[in-house]
């Protein structure tokens, strides 16, 4: 396959032509334009394939949650959103916490067109896998069973995982318990729960030399702690979700309150703007959705989490239009950094991996049309749970095409 047009890598933007091998699916060369392109790119921008390193695809060997999502529908939603690789969280009923269950779950990912990296879970009784994989540790109660009752219990476990790649959900269980009686979901999970948990996660990451990652970061107050840790050379990175960048608690109404319930919850407007700046200046590393498909019936009963894969690429156009992110900045937080995160876990046939348009990297691309506004409609969502928190909102642009290893998945209606 050959694609020509304006190319945006994390370090430069240039006009060029990309050649992708049909055989290996890897990029063979990036050179000057000659006027031949298998995709009519026009004035859209070609990015390295986007990566969403925090999703919940819900499928496991038990299959008990497949009524709301599975690896096929996750893959469809990802392609729709311009996402070419994902990393799936382990809080399944049959949780991948050992070699056998991890391998069993990995087999299920074969039906996904987008590459799936699996996290293994760290729970009170688990041991590290023999394989090199990323891990996830939940501190406080959320969805699933992999929680810790106390900091001591968590530290005792983390000590066994020295040097591993561990992602943390930062909400302090003690503070959540104390806040149980508060009137709203947002007050029951206050900012200080995240800030306290951040301190503890950073302490664990530093002490046990972890490749640490803080998930779905949401509070302004914790950012200086991350900055200080990074400056000390602590190997820590951090994600931020589209919903924490787009919504804040001033936008909650009686109509949307249940739909917009998630953990950690929406914070104040000042937090939201601080997160946007932190993403721009590199303190936050990844746009990762925490894509959490629950049915509307479940949402009406107060289940936390929102589905966001379908809108990933369109959200990037909002960052560019509304908050003046440059194409390089988008390439960094949506492609390069996510690609770098999964690199060491990829099979050899994926070459240099994802996130850069250069020879040897995977020939997966995300092409964004910045000039065709897109109204988000429920019926267009490809996630099995079939709704979006962005319904009724018009994004300034849309995904024109998603290319997976040299094969194009062109978008339908509205793409020019």
């Amino acid at each position, binding site marked *: 396959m050959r694609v020509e047009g304006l190319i945006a890598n994390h370090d430069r933007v240039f006009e060029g032509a990309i050649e992708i091998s049909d055989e290996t699916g890897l990029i063979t060369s990036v050179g000057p334009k000659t006027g031949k392109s298998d995709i009519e790119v026009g004035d859209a921008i070609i990015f390295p394939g986007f990566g969403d390193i925090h999703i919940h695809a819900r499928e496991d060997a038990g299959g008990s949650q497949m009524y709301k999502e599975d690896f096929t529908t996750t893959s469809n939603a990802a392609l729709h959103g311009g996402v070419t690789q994902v990393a799936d969280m382990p809080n399944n009923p049959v949780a991948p916490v050992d070699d056998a269950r991890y391998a069993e779950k990995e087999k299920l990912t074969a039906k996904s067109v987008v590459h799936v990296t699996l996290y293994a879970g760290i729970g009170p009784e688990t041991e590290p896998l023999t394989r090199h994989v990323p891990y996830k540790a939940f501190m406080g109660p959320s969805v699933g069973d992999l929680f810790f009752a106390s900091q001591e219990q968590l530290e005792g476990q983390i000590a066994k995982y*020295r040097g591993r790649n561990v992602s943390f959900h930062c909400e302090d269980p003690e503070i959540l318990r104390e806040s149980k009686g508060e009137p709203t979901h947002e007050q029951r999970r206050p900012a200080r729960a995240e800030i306290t948990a951040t301190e503890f996660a950073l302490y664990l990451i530093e002490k046990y*030399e972890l490749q640490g990652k803080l998930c779905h970061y949401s509070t302004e107050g914790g950012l200086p702690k991350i900055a200080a840790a990074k*400056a000390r*050379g602590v190997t820590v990175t951090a994600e931020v979700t589209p919903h924490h960048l787009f919504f804040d608690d001033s936008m909650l109404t009686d109509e949307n309150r249940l739909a917009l319930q998630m953990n950690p919850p929406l914070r104040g407007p000042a937090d939201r703007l601080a997160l946007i700046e932190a993403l721009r200046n590199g303190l936050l590393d990844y746009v990762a959705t925490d894509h959490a498909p629950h049915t509307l019936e479940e949402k009406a009963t107060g289940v936390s989490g929102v589905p966001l894969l379908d809108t990933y690429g369109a959200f990037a156009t909002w960052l560019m239009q509304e908050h003046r992110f440059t194409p390089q900045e988008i390439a960094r937080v949506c492609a390069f950094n996510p690609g770098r995160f999964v*690199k060491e876990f990829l099979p050899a046939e994926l070459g240099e991996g994802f996130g850069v348009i250069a020879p040897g990297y995977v020939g997966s691309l995300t092409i964004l049309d910045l000039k065709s506004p897109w109204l988000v409609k429920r019926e267009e969502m490809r996630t099995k749970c079939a709704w979006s928190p962005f319904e009724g909102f018009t994004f300034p642009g849309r995904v024109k095409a998603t290319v997976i290893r040299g094969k194009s998945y062109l978008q339908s209606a509205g793409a020019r």
Partner: protein
Amino acid sequence: MERLKHVISARQFDDPEFLLGLFESANAMDRDDKFRALTDPLRGRILATLFYEPSTRTRFSFEAAMQKLGGGVLTAENMRESSSATKGETIADTVRIVSGYADAIAIRHFEQGTAAEAARISPVPIINAGDGVGEHPTQALTDVYTIKKELGRLSGLRVALVGDLLNGRTIHSLLPLLCLYKDVQFDLISPWQLRLPLKHREYLLEKHATFRESEKLGSEVLEQADVLYITRVQKERFASAEEYESVKDAYILDAAMANRLKPEAIIMHALPRVNEISPEVDDNARAAYFRQAKNGLYIRMALLKYLLA
């Protein structure tokens, strides 16, 4: 690439596939070390470190590498003053004797060519740990490994080498390794008196590498570089104090200059530094030099395992 017995020059590493394998091995060492899961593949083997020139970090990193692999070390520093060398023993004799006790020898010497001379007669692997103004191949491997680890790629790079390019043996070893990769462009920034030696410039031409030379570390260089590699400008190499004064400040990297680099660019230095990188730069995410020093341990582990296991 033929299997190596000795490591004398960076030019022996002319196969990118081999380097990729070595880097993978270093990654595994790094992981296993953090996991506290290192096995002892070199148990019962001994590395001798013969250092005729002062060095702490290089010697320590070799010795730590050997011990982390389960091996032992025989160590001699200040060989020039404290050993039989003072009695007039030749390097050849020293190597013949020590090779009877040790399974490999890392040697640092103030004269160029000493490691090669030792390799000619040694029955055990010789590793050049720096020979005068000649080469320092394990530092160059460390540097390339660091670039790969930090930037994720080795082709299409713009590398600015700054400082004493005449005497900087780490630079002399680094150039041939970087020339293995496609579209690497060099900015050679040095005072005229400390230009890269002619034979190295000729080598770059021979390899069709793109390079430009300048005495100024200007904004164009800073803004385009993917790698900014700083070396120490040594006052004692200048003919007069005025000459030194006229150039030294141009090469002191401060926070303002570091921030003009691209956000994803990295700053490297083989260390020790004196004042050419101001300490305020240490907190900059682009400062890779301490990570670079740590990487040296894992590359040396991978190399020792390759040579001895």
